[in-house]
């Protein structure tokens, strides 16, 4: 049988009520697999940031989590406005959040930097007007 396990979750844009569900489910899954709490916490934070970016900006997306005995890999792929300047978006404090989003405690411009801080590898590709693909991974050992 496979040495890899993967699960795909769908996320809808503007779904603030359901936001955070995927990161919670991934957390539960990793805990059941016996992954160290510190790794689980970092995956949860990074996934949550990716998930809330989708909720705030994109139309719809899938988040795929994939685990091998060596690493956790998460891919968030959305259909949405895309990120015109990824370098700028990676700067702490840079945000395009609306006042409503800020009202809800989001949009501090820490989303992508926070993903970077909590993961071992991160790659972002985006096409303006089409969508964004965020992929990150954490080593287990």
């Amino acid at each position, binding site marked *: *049988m*496979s*040495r*890899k*396990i993967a699960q795909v979750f769908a996320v809808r844009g503007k779904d603030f009520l359901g936001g*955070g569900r995927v*990161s*919670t489910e991934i*957390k539960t*899954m990793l*805990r*059941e*697999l*016996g*992954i160290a*709490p*510190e790794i*689980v*916490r970092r995956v*949860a*934070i990074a996934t*949550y*940031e990716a998930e809330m970016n989708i909720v705030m900006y994109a139309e719809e997306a899938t988040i795929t989590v994939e*685990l*091998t*005995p060596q690493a956790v890999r998460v891919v968030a792929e959305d259909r949405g406005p895309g990120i015109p300047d990824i370098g700028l978006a990676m700067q702490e404090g840079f945000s395009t959040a609306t006042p409503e989003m800020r009202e809800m*405690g989001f949009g501090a411009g820490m989303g992508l930097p*926070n993903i970077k801080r909590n993961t071992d590898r991160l790659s972002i590709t985006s096409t303006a007007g089409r969508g964004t693909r965020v992929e990150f991974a954490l080593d*287990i050992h």
Partner: protein
Amino acid sequence: MKCLRACPTQAVRVRNGKATLLRDRCIDCGECVRTCPNKAFIPRTSSFSDFTGFKYTIALPSPVFYSQFGKDVAPATILNALKLVGFDDAFDVTCASEAVSIAIEEYLSTYDTPRPLISPFCPAIVRLVQIMYPSLLDNLIPIESPMEIAAREAKRLKMQELGLREDEIGAIYLAPCPAKMIALKNPPRKKHSFLDGVIPISQIYPNVLRVLGAAEAAEPRPDVRGLGLGWPILGGQVACLKAEERIAIAGLTDVMRVFHEIENGKLKDIHYIECHSCPTACVGGTLTVENPYIARGRVLRMVERYGAEPCQDRQKIKELVRKNYFALVGTIAPSPAPPLDEDIARAIRKMHRRNQMYETLPKIDCGACGAPTCMAFAADVVKGDADADQCVFLVMKTFEGMTKNLMDAVGKHKKRLQGTSPRGDHDA
């Protein structure tokens, strides 16, 4: 079966008609005790006779105890009554609660540790963190509980006054819930406790009720005062703290939701969270007698009446804080719920098998198999802790299959009989 669904950590399994607890998942919250219509869960308790070995006994009632009697029974009277039912003395715990509140404030203003800090005074919350949220252990504020501080202080005073050794004095806590009882018997960390035993409030209640009249007539003691009286209700702890962003949460569903958010990196601007596992905080403990809402009303009344004047000297407490008087002894270690397998590669294979198994189940979480959900049942089967034929739906499917095969066979046989003999006759 009600307990299956009530358990927030899925620790209950019904096997051979009997409910059992998986100790490595149980957080002692008492929800099963609360919901079981047959009273199948009976927390192990102590009684008076267990404490005859001590030369001197002191009762330390949980602040909840003061809310269990008539609306105007003063805490001081209740302490007097405890002396009349057989303890050598009774010692108020709420004054220690006030001291601990000051210690929390000092801690918040001194240390820059990860926020939000979480109150560790509900033992079920501490176990919840150990088992389900081990990454939040550093958020538990490392301060001793009021009951422990009060017991230490009570013993110190009595040793001085009576010239006794510490082990000659028995300090007995009157507890509102099984969590506090179990926490003293199996502490989450190895350490010396100044408490020697626990008696449930529900057990001592009738004895105390009987002597309340006599207690009122006895020599009066000074009033119990201070905001510590409010500790057993939701918001009682944070009401004692000045400034700082602080919130109070009760009930495990809400507590778990907030813990998920903290794990996701949220709520960093909150400094302190008062957490209770019982939905109505400590006055709703399963070993109490009074309706928790009535009890809450009484606590509010007591705070109004006796709360304004502090019982502690703030400067003196601050000095004690500097001497680490309130520091938690020992560390609380993680004890995560067991994974599907200790080896990750094997755990992955088991998760595949569990997910396949889950797809064959009805997914209605009926509980007839004795597990709380179809997913938990599938995991139990994969781990070898349950058999697939415990699921009535799977058994029905098997029977359906068997019946269909049988009926098909009978049908074929009939056809063959019909097809051969009569027509054969005809042809001949």
